[in-house]
């Protein structure tokens, strides 16, 4: 509401809808849509998840005060381009569960034009993934000019997401496929950057983003392979 002057005719408070939880169920980490980012970062399951990398991402989002009121559903559903969390969740193999449209992978949800629905929960596959989140910002307390997240499981299945381009994050599928049969991370990072479209906004130019994208992806790959 603070990001636009849009008039809202009817708002429904979901605070007491029972969508406020973090739990592990059927090898999935499930987070209710009305759970605040603050509650998530204080949760012991999250603190231990993905070797503590997920919590680092959460703690890099804006301020403590905002995280105590921003819900994960409200963060994911608008598909905001500058979102760091969407980039990370894409790299972690996440499904979204919607009240009307059912369950679907996050990457599918990001491409769909679903407007009126409720994000019931997020289900993150509890695979043994190593995760790395990289971003470029002018200062810590700012939106990312570009962000990338890379993860890999024990079977060398890589997931690479690039966000804040400034469009919303998407998976670098060509680079992910390349890494199935190759181990040249320099080349993979280049492929990832080349398959994405970049644009300009007040934070940075298209050209700048094109230049830093392969660097951030390479750093992520190096980190998960360490």
């Amino acid at each position, binding site marked *: 509401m*603070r990001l636009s002057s849009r008039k*809202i005719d009817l*708002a429904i*408070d979901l*605070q007491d809808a029972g969508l406020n939880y973090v739990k592990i169920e059927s090898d999935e980490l499930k987070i209710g849509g009305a759970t605040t980012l*603050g509650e998530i970062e*204080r949760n012991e399951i999250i603190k231990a998840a993905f070797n503590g990398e997920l919590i680092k991402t959460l*703690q890099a989002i*804006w*301020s*403590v*005060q*905002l995280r*105590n*009121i921003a819900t994960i559903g409200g963060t994911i559903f608008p598909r905001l381009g500058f979102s760091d969390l969407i980039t990370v969740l894409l790299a972690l193999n996440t499904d979204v569960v919607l009240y009307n449209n059912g369950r679907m992978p996050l990457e599918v949800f990001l491409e769909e034009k679903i407007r009126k629905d409720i994000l019931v929960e997020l289900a993150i596959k509890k695979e043994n993934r190593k995760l790395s989140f990289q971003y470029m910002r002018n200062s*810590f*307390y700012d939106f990312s000019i570009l962000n990338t997240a890379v993860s890999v499981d024990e079977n060398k299945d890589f997931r690479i997401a690039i966000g804040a381009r400034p469009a919303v994050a998407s998976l670098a599928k060509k680079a992910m496929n390349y890494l199935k049969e190759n181990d040249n991370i320099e080349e993979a990072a280049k492929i990832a950057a080349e398959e994405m479209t970049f644009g300009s906004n007040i934070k940075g130019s298209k050209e700048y983003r094109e230049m830093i994208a392969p660097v951030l992806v390479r750093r992520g790959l190096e980190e998960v392979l360490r």
Partner: protein
Amino acid sequence: MKIILTINNVKREVEISPSEFLLDVLRRLDYMSVKKGCDTGTCGVCTVLMDGKPVLSCSVLAASADGHEITTIEGLENDPEFKAISNALLEEGADQCGFCSPGLILNVYAMKKELKNPSEEDMKKYLVGNLCRCTGYVPQMRAIKKYFEVKA
């Protein structure tokens, strides 16, 4: 519409408009320590505690605060922790115009309850959302470190 707010341990029934934000309601009720700065969820001068956790009152719809406990600086007047934090700020000359002080003090107060032995880096990350228009961050950090050292 009517909501129930417990402000500084006093339960109050408050008439609000559905589109009103908590910041405007608190100021209308004369809790003038809660400042209106950027009004876009960035500067942190509107920080209050909701159920003990720091939140930006400019971005909380008053209706969604129904039934919750709100703490402003006025409610900490006799709290020894409040006195210790404000004394540390005073001793280090960390108050210039004072506009950001209520929000900063409330966030330091919440940080003390949440983090046991924060490092300087932890403090900076926790307080990143409290902007000071006088750019007095150096004396502020000196004061906050001093407060934590004394209390440790």
